[in-house]
């Protein structure tokens, strides 16, 4: 036995020195200036996204230790006002692997750079639907769900709960408008519609007078089953809950929400990822952290399985049937071959617990139930992946 062990050991090390593989990844954070919100209760962490990448990196490095594969990361921050393309060009010159935390239009511009051709770029910050549709790029993958995946998830909940009489309040920021548009499309997709819609146009300080203003503002909706809020910057929504004229559930950006990730997810081994993340970064893991973690782990998973850092081989493997990522969501995560979107279950949560996980039981699909969320192959006009 002892001799056998020694022989195996010698063999493995002789093999591995020859085959050592190192994956260099760049992480680029382009500052997105955000308008002020009414409440300062939940500041956005400075290292949002980066913390997820670092946790994924550590996971990869641990695995790599046993396979003589190394993982290195360089992080770059571009403040508002500086040209992100200059930074992106420099990074792409060092490695074809780039994880982005940037606005949708910056991501498109980076993916279109001559230096980015043949690169593998991950969008971890934008739910913009057009990036998965007509504006898709064949070098741009998406680990954050599209807005449509999240609004489809909620629409399934409405159908299941028979909340068919729905009203919506929409904020004025572009993200709110985009979310509201995604929600309207989802409602149509699942045979629902809106009985009423209003725009949130207050500029008062709701912390003081929400209890007076919100009942009046919501009174003329009449009766309904549930109220949807399109408030993606979390500006006014938190003051609507429990202040509506009718006592009805609030859903959408606040209340019952569809999210990529949340600290309340503990099933499917998620408790381990949560505690690993919290221990390292001293805060809970957000959706954007999860998307960034998933991008880094995607790269780790393909390098583990293929033992190469050739971008064409890795891209092919990611889009093949062989790829699967264990993402603590109860089923394997894979990529849609028509637009590079990471297929994943969507959590339906309130701040204290997981309520459901979409796709909900009964929403069937001819190929994969997960494709009942977001742009399915016949719906997407993305051609870059063909």
């Amino acid at each position, binding site marked *: *036995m*002892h001799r*056998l*062990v020694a022989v*195996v*050991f010698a063999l*493995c090390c002789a093999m591995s020195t020859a085959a050592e593989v190192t994956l260099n990844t760049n992480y680029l954070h382009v500052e997105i200036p955000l308008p002020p919100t009414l409440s300062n209760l939940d500041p956005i962490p400075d290292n949002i996204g980066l913390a997820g990448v670092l946790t994924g990196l550590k*996971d990869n490095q*641990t*695995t790599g*230790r*046993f*396979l003589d594969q190394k993982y290195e990361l360089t992080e770059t921050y571009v403040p508002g006002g500086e040209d992100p393309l200059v930074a992106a060009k420099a990074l792409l010159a060092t490695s074809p692997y780039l994880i982005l935390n940037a606005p949708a239009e910056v991501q498109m511009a980076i993916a279109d750079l001559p230096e980015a051709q043949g690169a593998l770029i991950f969008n971890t910050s934008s739910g913009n639907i057009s990036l998965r549709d007509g504006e898709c790029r064949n070098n741009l993958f998406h680990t954050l769900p599209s807005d449509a995946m999240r609004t489809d998830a909620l629409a399934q909940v409405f159908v299941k709960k028979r909340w068919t009489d729905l009203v919506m309040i929409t904020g004025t920021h572009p993200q709110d408008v985009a979310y509201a548009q995604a929600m309207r499309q989802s409602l149509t997709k699942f045979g629902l519609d809106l009985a009423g819609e209003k725009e949130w146009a207050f500029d008062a300080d709701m912390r003081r007078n929400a209890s007076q203003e919100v009942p009046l503002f919501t009174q003329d909706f009449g009766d309904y089953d549930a109220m949807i809020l399109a408030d993606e910057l979390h500006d006014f929504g938190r003051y609507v809950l429990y202040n509506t004229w009718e006592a009805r559930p609030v859903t959408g950006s606040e209340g019952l929400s569809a999210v990529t990730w949340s600290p309340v997810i503990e099933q499917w*081994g998620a408790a*381990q990822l949560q*505690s*690993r993340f919290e*221990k390292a970064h001293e805060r809970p893991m957000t959706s954007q952290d999860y998307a960034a973690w998933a991008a880094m782990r995607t790269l780790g998973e393909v390098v*583990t*399985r293929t033992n190469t850092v050739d971008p064409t081989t890795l891209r092919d493997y990611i889009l093949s049937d062989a790829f*699967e*990522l*264990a993402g603590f969501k*109860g*089923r*394997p995560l894979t990529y849609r071959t028509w637009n590079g979107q990471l297929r994943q279950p969507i959590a339906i949560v309130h701040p204290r617990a997981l309520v459901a996980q979409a796709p909900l039981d009964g929403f069937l699909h001819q190929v*994969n*139930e*997960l494709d009942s969320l977001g742009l399915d192959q016949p719906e997407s006009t993305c051609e870059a992946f063909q």
Partner: protein
Amino acid sequence: MIRTTLAALLLTTTAHAGEIWVTNEKDDTVSVISTETLEVIKTYETGERPRGITFSKDFSLLYICASDSNAVQVMDPNSGEILHDLPSGEDPEQFVLHPDDRHLYIANEDDAITTVVDTETRKVVAQIDVGIEPEGMAVSPDGKIAITTSETTNMAHWIDTETQELFANTLVDSRPRHAEFLRDGSEMWVSSEIGGTLTIFDTATQAEKAKISFEVQGVHPDRVQPVGFEFTDGDTHAFVALGPSNHVAVVNAETYEVEDYILVGRRVWHMDFNEDRSLLFTTNGVSGDVTVIDVAKREAIKSIKVGRFPWGAAFRPTN
């Protein structure tokens, strides 16, 4: 149905008396089920989040992984009294007792470490760096090899128990959860929850010998997730818990073919047999019960309500 159950019961009564001990992960208790009456006869309190559970070779001591108490607890199974804690490293999830009846190999899920504890001196003998989220633990019948599987690194780590060092690391499909050796030691099996497969290794060469997939009618393949498994008498078959598909598969251990699927409770996790291996007891986490399977008939014959989120199961004879 009732008649066959009774017959099976009578048979068990006369031949073998025993108990199945089940850890209830979210109740901080163990439930004790009589293998004769198929009823819960006792419930004892444990540390926080009990998961892995195993008896000493003479069944005089019960070891429990109290994950959130960061300890392995040693219980007197005759009184339910916790005798003492063993140092276990952080977050012990699952463990295996070496054939020497003395050393516990413990997976420390949060720390990517396998801890080896001497149960007599109550000291940590070794800590071995393994992959992220170690869980599945096995030891070869001759005691020379211990296995740790790591859920996020997707590997089986082979430990030489003499040097307490890794001598091989073999990749498996996503989220390996459980490992077992055949009784003759020739093969080592690993289940992959997210990959949906069982991988079979040749112990001598650590080479992959076969891979088994599952297909449950009416359940999407993504939700067919193999977790715990055990071999029948003579190692002819393996009974494999398939997690959220709520089925147990019966695998022929010679042809590697899946012969049957048995419907059990929700999110079936681990299992153990009664003494003559005629009955199998599976823990069903989500439904909070234990399903009793008649092994010969391959039928579920009873559900027994236990605590919240039953996790591990271990048998001890009482006659």
